[in-house]
């Protein structure tokens, strides 16, 4: 009842490069795995997918060797299969519900989806039907997974879409956050090129809230509706002593330097300083990405996480990969102070051991410090990866846009409608940091609602 094994770069080799770790299924492996699907009538896997991809159907097409049909079937519900097949936490979504998971391994739905996405790209298969422009303009703010999905859906309906991106490259977290060894930039670029072929325009280096406001876009530039997919890019720090020492990074800075600015490549100008050893604080995907990047930059790399292995929020596959790569895990450990040398550089991180107490409001057992258990880990770099919150730039400059106590934009769950007429929002800007696929699901709802809103206005 084991799933078909998949090719991967050997750990000792891959820690010396930033190339993709998982090599993907060969055609034979893919068919073998697709044949494990029971094609059950109840289809619990579909319920586990936030955008309800018709999983048994696309797998059946794979078995039938009809890859074009498989592409089209996924495209009905998802615009980014090559991305989601790689980065979704399938073990808590589609694959968790798979009937086979009760007695063994679930069908490798993510890997099969990735196969379809990669096939589309490698065969330059065109999924786009010709569209007739309907003469209406919609602005999309942010070119991350939410923005790209909303732009794609509306462009297919004939809308004239411009996506405004603050950075110089499009893709949001897919290009500045998730490293090349998990999601190659070429995969993201392909998806974006597809949108360009659909007629979607991209304006990079435009910071909505500074370069131009939502009011200006609607009043002066003729956009009839706006979708805000600006994400949750504001890093949180721990507020412990020593966080302003040299060598302390937010995970966003560390990953942005390395992924977006390609600091790992000597031909690029942006510097990065991983030191001989780095402690990464946190247990999510971002922490794993930072720890594995630091390792590839030549540093000894530690994860410092306050709960136990079972509670690690990162994808199981990434935790497994990190362990294979020799990342050292200091679990049930919480930093209390970062210590510096006489020149103001990090020399160590002081931690305290934790034990798990009673469950807290999130249902997880609350970590409690063990008295007298403090110890130091000597490191030259500390990366804080404890989470992010929504960037306030857009809400600050858009009158009438209501926020909740977590600074996230308040919306109507079903439509993505905000408290400002004509303005919709979705993804991490609304939910706080979550997953790529949830951002896509939310954006999809908003696209539908924006279409209905503009049509109803016409009458």
């Amino acid at each position, binding site marked *: 009842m084991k799933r078909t094994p998949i090719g991967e770069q050997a750990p000792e080799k891959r820690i010396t490069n930033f190339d993709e770790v998982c090599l993907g299924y060969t055609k034979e492996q893919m068919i073998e795995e697709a044949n494990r699907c029971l094609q059950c009538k109840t289809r619990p896997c579909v319920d586990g997918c936030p955008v309800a991809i018709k999983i048994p159907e696309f797998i059946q097409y794979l078995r039938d060797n009809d890859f074009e049909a498989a592409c089209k079937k996924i495209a009905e519900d998802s615009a980014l299969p090559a991305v989601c097949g790689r980065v979704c936490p399938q073990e808590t979504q589609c694959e968790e519900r798979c009937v086979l998971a009760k007695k063994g391994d679930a069908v490798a739905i993510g890997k099969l989806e990735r196969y379809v996405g990669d096939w589309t790209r490698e065969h330059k298969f065109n999924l786009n039907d010709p569209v007739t422009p309907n003469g209406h303009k919609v602005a999309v703010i942010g070119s991350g997974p939410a923005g790209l999905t909303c732009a794609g859906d509306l462009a297919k309906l004939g809308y004239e879409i411009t996506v405004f991106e603050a950075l110089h490259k499009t893709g949001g977290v897919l290009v500045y956050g998730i490293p090349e060894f998990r999601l190659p930039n070429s995969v993201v670029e392909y998806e974006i090129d597809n949108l360009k072929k659909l007629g979607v325009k991209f304006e990079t280096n*435009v910071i909505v809230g500074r370069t131009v406001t939502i009011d200006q876009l609607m009043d002066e530039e003729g956009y009839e509706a706006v979708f805000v997919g600006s994400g949750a890019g504001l890093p949180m720090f721990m507020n412990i002593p020593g966080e*302003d020492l040299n060598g302390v990074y937010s995970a966003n800075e560390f990953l942005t330097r390395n992924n977006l600015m390609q600091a790992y490549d000597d*031909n*690029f*100008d942006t510097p990065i300083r991983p030191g001989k050893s780095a402690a990464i604080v946190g247990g999510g995907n971002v922490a794993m990405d930072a720890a594995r990047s630091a390792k590839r930059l030549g540093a000894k790399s530690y994860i410092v996480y306050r709960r136990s292995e079972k509670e690690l929020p990162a994808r199981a596959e990434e935790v497994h990969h990190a362990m294979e790569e020799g990342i050292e895990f200091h679990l049930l450990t919480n930093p209390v102070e970062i210590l510096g040398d006489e020149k103001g550089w990090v020399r160590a991180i002081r931690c305290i051991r934790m034990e798990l107490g009673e469950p807290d409001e999130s249902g997880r057992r609350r970590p409690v410090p063990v008295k007298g258990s403090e110890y130091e880990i000597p490191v030259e770099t500390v990366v804080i990866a404890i989470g992010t919150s929504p960037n*306030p730039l857009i809400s600050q400059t858009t009158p009438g846009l209501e926020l909740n106590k977590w600074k996230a934009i308040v919306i109507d769950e079903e439509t993505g409608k905000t408290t400002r007429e004509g303005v919709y929002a979705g993804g991490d800007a609304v939910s706080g940091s979550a997953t790529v696929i949830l951002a896509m699901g939310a954006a999809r709802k908003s696209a539908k609602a924006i279409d209905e809103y503009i049509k109803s206005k016409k009458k």
Partner: protein
Amino acid sequence: MYKILKKKMLGSQIVLMDIEAPRVAKASLPGQFVIVIMDEKGERIPLTVCDYDIKKGTVTIVFQTVGDTTRRMAGFREGDSFFAFTGPLGHPSDFVKEPLEEVKKKKFIFIGGGVGVAPVYPQVKWLKEHEVDVDVIMGARNKDLIILEDEMKKAAKDVYVCTDDGSYGFHGLVTDCLTDLVKNKGKSYDHAVIIGPMIMMKFAAKLTKELGIPTVVSLNTIMVDGTGMCGACRVNVGGAVKFACVDGPEFDGHAVDYDGAMRRMAMYKTEEGRKALRTTEGTTHKPEKGCGVQGAQIG
């Protein structure tokens, strides 16, 4: 791509450029800055907005060649383009939003050090356009580093130029000049704006504190994105951590932890130094291509 419409050398190491960027020009206000990337492989560097022209759709930047990127940028000509040019970023200066009658009551002294005179200029010009007369002290190490003197004289009431080595104007530091104005010349001010190297802002702010003048400084920290998503630019102001790019770049000059800020600035010195070496000397400093190896071949 963002085209260079005008380039002018203001000294042997200081360059002025007008960049075609209509959206940025339209939104810019004094006190704000932009992020520039010179080419596809370039780094993102922050530069203060020195002037802007909505009609022409241009933004003026002034930079000094201090490292690898600025040195190569100085080699760009009119007609060349920057890969990215984004902004305006940060908050405009406070007086832009204050009621004009309040602003008019204040006696401003602007202090610009070296290339810091450039970001002082749009502020002085904005105030002039709103009929507020201000005094300006502009200082530099020597005469060659004095910039925008004529422009500043047109925009300000009185301009005091000083050089560290006495090669031009008042002989001494900007702090000596301010002391002279207040203690000997009977001038009084109730608001100071200081922009320049961190060390100069530290000591000038110390002086204005002694003189009891409320002070604003503009911080030139390390930055990456400039939109608040990374915290590379974090500084300690009045005991709280602030991001210079979104909370600033202007802060209460008497509350900034200058020593901490200077320590962070030093963070990439070695990498920058190495890169500069690579530009000027190619790969000759690397052992495999060093003089010994080549010398042996020639010999």
